[in-house]
């Protein structure tokens, strides 16, 4: 019945339906989130007996005065700013080009999608070889233009750039597919109307394509920002288990990993996780409020 009033029995039944999913969510999402928030306040803690002897703000005080954490925050922000805008722009351009060609478009879509289905470690190995300073493909290519060999992975100056280039390349595939879906969902009529209204190709792009694509652009941006804030695996794989030469690619998650697995400072690791959580939260809220004005559904 559509107009049935909720009763104890019907509510219980509903919970029964929800139970399997709730069980998984609570165990693997809700509980760890609460636990890590709590853990960030454990200042004296025995991991093996799970005994908390003291709690307080010391973990946060520590990380805010830790130079490594400062580097990690700075590197994370550079990484996000370096990766996200370029990923959005490049994948949009490629999607627009793919949308124009009819010939072999299926093949190109597959080719561009491949990085998404390939494991990060495998990708990193290939890029490791591309970046090799003595016999790498990139230095060979640059040498054609008379550029001296660059130690992409060994020099602190270039390590972050190398990481950003590889991450952009890795992100393209999925975002291109998203943009293609968005482009295909724009009704051809709008372009016809714009043409009749006197809009040339550029004006059609800025006045029809961009605004009507804004929900996808927004999705891609949010996704990219969150993903980039959490960068870890590509760093681990590209620099062979190091955060880059002289910590030049140390990100917050990498810092968290080091504190947790190599230094066993669980409270500090949890505290850095909490800081990361609030950073992502703030950026996402800013994006959401921006989207209210500029994203057209």
């Amino acid at each position, binding site marked *: 019945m559509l107009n049935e009033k909720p009763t104890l029995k019907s509510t219980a039944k509903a919970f029964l339906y929800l139970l399997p999913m709730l069980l998984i969510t609570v165990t693997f999402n809700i509980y760890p989130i609460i636990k890590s928030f709590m853990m960030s306040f454990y200042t004296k803690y025995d991991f093996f007996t799970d005994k908390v002897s003291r709690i307080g703000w010391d973990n946060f005080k520590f990380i805010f005065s830790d130079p490594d954490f400062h580097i990690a925050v700075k590197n994370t922000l550079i990484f996000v700013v370096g990766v996200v805008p370029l990923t959005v722009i490049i994948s949009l351009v490629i999607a627009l080009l793919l949308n124009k060609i009819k010939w072999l478009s299926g093949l190109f879509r597959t080719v561009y999608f491949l990085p998404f289905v390939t494991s990060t470690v495998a990708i990193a190995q290939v890029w490791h070889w591309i970046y090799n300073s003595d016999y790498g493909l990139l230095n060979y290519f640059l040498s054609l233009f008379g550029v001296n060999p660059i130690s992409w992975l060994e020099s602190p100056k270039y390590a972050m750039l190398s990481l950003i280039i590889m991450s952009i390349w890795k992100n393209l595939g999925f975002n291109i597919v998203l943009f293609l879906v968005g482009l295909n969902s724009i009704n051809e*009529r709008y372009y016809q*109307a714009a043409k*009749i*209204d*006197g*809009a*040339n190709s550029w*004006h059609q792009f800025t006045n*029809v394509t961009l605004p009507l694509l804004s929900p996808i652009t927004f999705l891609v941006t949010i996704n990219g920002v969150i993903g980039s804030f959490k960068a870890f695996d590509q760093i681990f794989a590209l620099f062979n288990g190091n955060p880059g030469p002289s910590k030049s690619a140390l990100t917050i998650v990498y810092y968290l990993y080091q504190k947790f697995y190599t230094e066993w400072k669980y409270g500090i690791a949890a505290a850095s996780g909490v800081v990361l959580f609030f950073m992502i939260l703030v950026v996402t809220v800013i994006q959401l409020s921006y989207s209210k004005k500029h994203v*057209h559904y």
Partner: protein
Amino acid sequence: MEVTFKDVSLSYDGTREILHHLNFTIPEGTLVSILGPSGCGKSTTLMMISGLLAPTSGKIFFGDKDVTKQDALARKVGMVFQNYALYPHLTVLENIMFPLKMAKVKKPERKKRALELAKLVHVEDQINKKPGALSGGQQQRVAIARALAKEPSLLLLDEPLSNLDARLRIEMREEIRRIQQETGVTTIFVTHDQDEALHISDHIMVLNNGDMQQFSSAETLYDNPSNLFVAKFIGEPVINTLAIADFQGELDQHVPADILKQAVSVGIRPEALQDHDSGDDTIAAIETTVKEFEKYGREKNAQLDFHGKKLLTTEIENTLEKEQKLTLYLQKSGFYLFDQDGKRIFGGDQDVK
């Protein structure tokens, strides 16, 4: 602006022709409907006038200017699409201003003109809403205002009323007529609904299967259909059509023998079958049997059997009984003969005095 098609043909794939050798001239300042059943090529014709589609062969003129090679951008026509195609992310006012923005009109001037147009189409109280928040009829009005914004030489409307409910459709077609007369812009209106076409247009072009059937005023179309298709397509209820072989000598005395020899089909408008002799206008009398008699409101309809064929009449004065014998008087106006190719060879103005 006068629009002329000279021998225009179109095929999308190079093998199958959609439109065949169209020749017509749409006079300046008139409202012309392109009328035809679904898939007859009427929207395609409109797209070619707009410049969104280029003809495969033939030439299109605006006035004396050959615009065949120009695209939609260069032709500067206004167009209202079937689903309106209002930009969903812009407000009503911004939608109306858009063509002016593209024409690089200064902002205050743009706004002034857009407000005038909003007033003309009666949406001035909706200007800050997004199209999604408007009803179908309001969206329709905004689409017309947008199309008129750049003062086009031509206003094209592609089935503009098909998404509206019956009452609104009648209101909006009067609105389109009013706006056309107030602005004096040459308007071309595509529709599959003869009612719409008959009510608002100065001239109607009937298309079928990519061929122009007839291009004339609504009255001429009804009284003098040039062929069987037009006779069947125009008119509600539909004209009665019989084969000439269904008559057993009833027409011999009244139609010249040489015409009767060529005739293949007979068309009789339902109102041209009367149960009383009207004297001069009566051309022949036929004997029929009443099969069905309905009376609702001021309408009296009867279905009759004539040598085994069904006939419909709307001109009954008496009350009829089922299976009753009835003599019907065929009226000259509304009686047509068509030859093998469907061309009218008898009836209409040429034979009615």
